[in-house]
């Protein structure tokens, strides 16, 4: 069965190097060429996101990126979802952060890569 993307935060990136991850964060900066951008995660770490094709839209606010993590601070993005700002007005990053940490502790709730 296809494995899923494990939800991570900045600090958990290290545990999932090379694996499929899902990262939620705020867009911090976008590179001038539009081929990468920096995400600020719910535990206040900056992760670089590399895109397969350059951006053609303006990115800001909360975004959810899925892809492969190359190392502790970088993801190669398979796809992203820009979160509607209307639903993030009361968003509590601390709760999300804690939920992610608890959720990723064992993989009974999602399907992980076979390796």
């Amino acid at each position, binding site marked *: 069965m296809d494995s899923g*993307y494990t939800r991570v935060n900045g600090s958990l990136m290290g545990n999932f190097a090379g694996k499929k991850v899902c990262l939620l964060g705020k867009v911090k900066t976008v590179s001038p060429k539009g081929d990468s951008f920096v995400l600020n995660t719910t535990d206040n770490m900056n992760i670089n996101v590399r895109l397969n094709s350059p951006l053609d839209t303006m990115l800001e606010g909360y975004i959810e990126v899925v892809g492969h993590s190359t190392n502790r601070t970088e993801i190669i993005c398979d796809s992203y979802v820009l979160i509607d700002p209307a639903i993030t007005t009361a968003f509590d990053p601390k709760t999300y952060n804690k939920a992610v940490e608890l959720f990723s502790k064992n993989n009974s709730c999602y399907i992980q890569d076979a390796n």
Partner: protein
Amino acid sequence: MWGESAFENMQGGFLPTNSDPFGAGTQGQPGQPGQQANRTKMQNMMPVTLAMIHKAEHLESENKFTIGGISFSQVSVVGIVRNVEVNNINITYEIDDYSGPTMEVKYWLDGPDGGEGMAQEQQIARNQYVRVCGPVRVFQAKRSVIAFRILPVEDMNEISRHMLEVKFVHLVLTKGEKKQPAALGGAPSSNSAGFDSGLRGLNQQVAQLIGSCREDIGMHIRGICDQLKGVPEAKIRQAIDFLSSEGHIYSTIDDDHYRSTDGA
């Protein structure tokens, strides 16, 4: 219910018989494990991830899904809509919550609110977070969910909440309820019986101290003062008066010795 089996085997319907496989005449009989006279469907809804639905064991004969031994009839899922296909009788969504493969979710339009519901459902667009509630179906080894309700997520916190709910329910069901620490009540009530006596602050501390003393003559007030250094004796006497009038403690050999009425 009782009548048939009584006439069939002429034993009053009280004894288990082979002709009574549903156990309808054997309610309350020991030695009849696994036979449920009650055939009502279970109505529990479990918050799950799509991976859990894919991984769940499916009992074909009873059309039951189980995870870790716990069966459920309905699920609640939070995920992103990847695809929407509308036709006259239903809307098919493809939902993804990143836990594994995506899942097909069908919303039927012939329900009582099908007419008005459709206008609302058409507002669910791709790449939008939604919550789906409904039963799981299997058809030709492919699992899907029927959406009794499909609602757009209006607050991103629902995603955190759903993750926590899934994890919590999963842990509780697979590991069993852990004894809740008494401190959850808001004030520490570390009475060994785990019973919250409703006392707070100094009263509780004094009651606890007196309760911990197993002597027949009880605890001397001096002993209480020594344990609660920093609390003036007058306050301790006040607490003792209160506890005594409430019936938590009683005086023994004199007005300075008190014993607890609780427990052993």
